[in-house]
């Protein structure tokens, strides 16, 4: 029972993450360099805060697979590199520090962008020309991370049910 509940919930969250990332990719926003708010990050953070790490990692990887199907190979590599790096950083902050939700989200967004810069540099074969984008992308990460972190903290506030105790005995 508990296991099926966890699988079902992860599936719902994955669908939500894919939908949010797809909507972001088709709605143009007046942000520099095609930066996006990263609303799917809310879902990933919710998953590792309220369910567990494996389901958050699965959502991240399968979301990249979804991007591969809808937006092509390069977009998928970018999504995976940013997603995995930011998940690792956010998880460490969540486990080992007493950082607030907004701070975790900001660090996640910034490392997501840094992961994408590194991946872009490796694909281009020139890390330095990709790195010229980094200051503006770090600022973008701080702003979008604050937004998603704020939204997540609102969601966590209204989500009264302690899912974790619900799931693990």
């Amino acid at each position, binding site marked *: 029972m508990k296991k099926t509940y966890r699988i079902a919930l992860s599936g719902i969250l994955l669908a939500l993450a894919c939908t949010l990332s797809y909507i972001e990719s088709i709605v143009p926003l007046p942000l*520099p*360099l*095609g930066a996006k708010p990263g609303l799917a990050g809310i879902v990933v953070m919710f998953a590792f805060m309220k369910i567990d790490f494996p389901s958050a990692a699965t959502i991240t990887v399968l979301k990249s697979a979804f991007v591969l199907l809808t*937006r*092509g190979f*390069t*977009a998928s590599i*970018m999504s995976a590199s940013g997603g995995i790096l930011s998940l690792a950083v956010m998880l460490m902050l*969540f486990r080992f520090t*007493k*950082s*607030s*939700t*907004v*701070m975790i989200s*900001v660090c996640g967004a*910034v490392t997501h962008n840094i992961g994408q810069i590194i991946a*872009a540099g490796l*694909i*281009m*074969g*020139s890390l*330095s*020309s*990709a*790195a*010229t*984008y980094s*200051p*503006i992308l*770090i*600022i973008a990460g*701080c702003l979008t991370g*604050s937004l998603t*972190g*704020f939204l997540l*903290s609102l969601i*966590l*506030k209204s989500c009264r049910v302690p899912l974790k105790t619900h799931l693990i005995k």
Partner: protein
Amino acid sequence: MNTRFLKLSEALIIIIVILLCLLIIFLRNGNNGKSAIISINGKTAAVIPLSKESEHFSVKGADNIFFTVHNGCIYVDSSDCTDKICMKTGKINKCGESIICLPKKVSVTISDSTENTDVIVG
């Protein structure tokens, strides 16, 4: 456990990081460059002088991406790539600035020399 909202110390860290990045952006905006190095796959494919106006030209090896040089600035005026980040980057003319088009593996970097060099100013 986790404080729900942002702590003051964390807000300060974020603000300092944003200010540092703004500082880097302003300090980097130095001299106007003299040429644009167009690289494909990390290898220099063409060096375009920014003093000469030219419109809607393409570079061998990169299909369906067109550049325009106008008023000492270079920009990508059209490209058939998926994300169009190269076009959104807009006009560049300062040393060290760059435009990248990831799906096409094309990058444009401004240099202050007019010679054919491989050096990219970071």
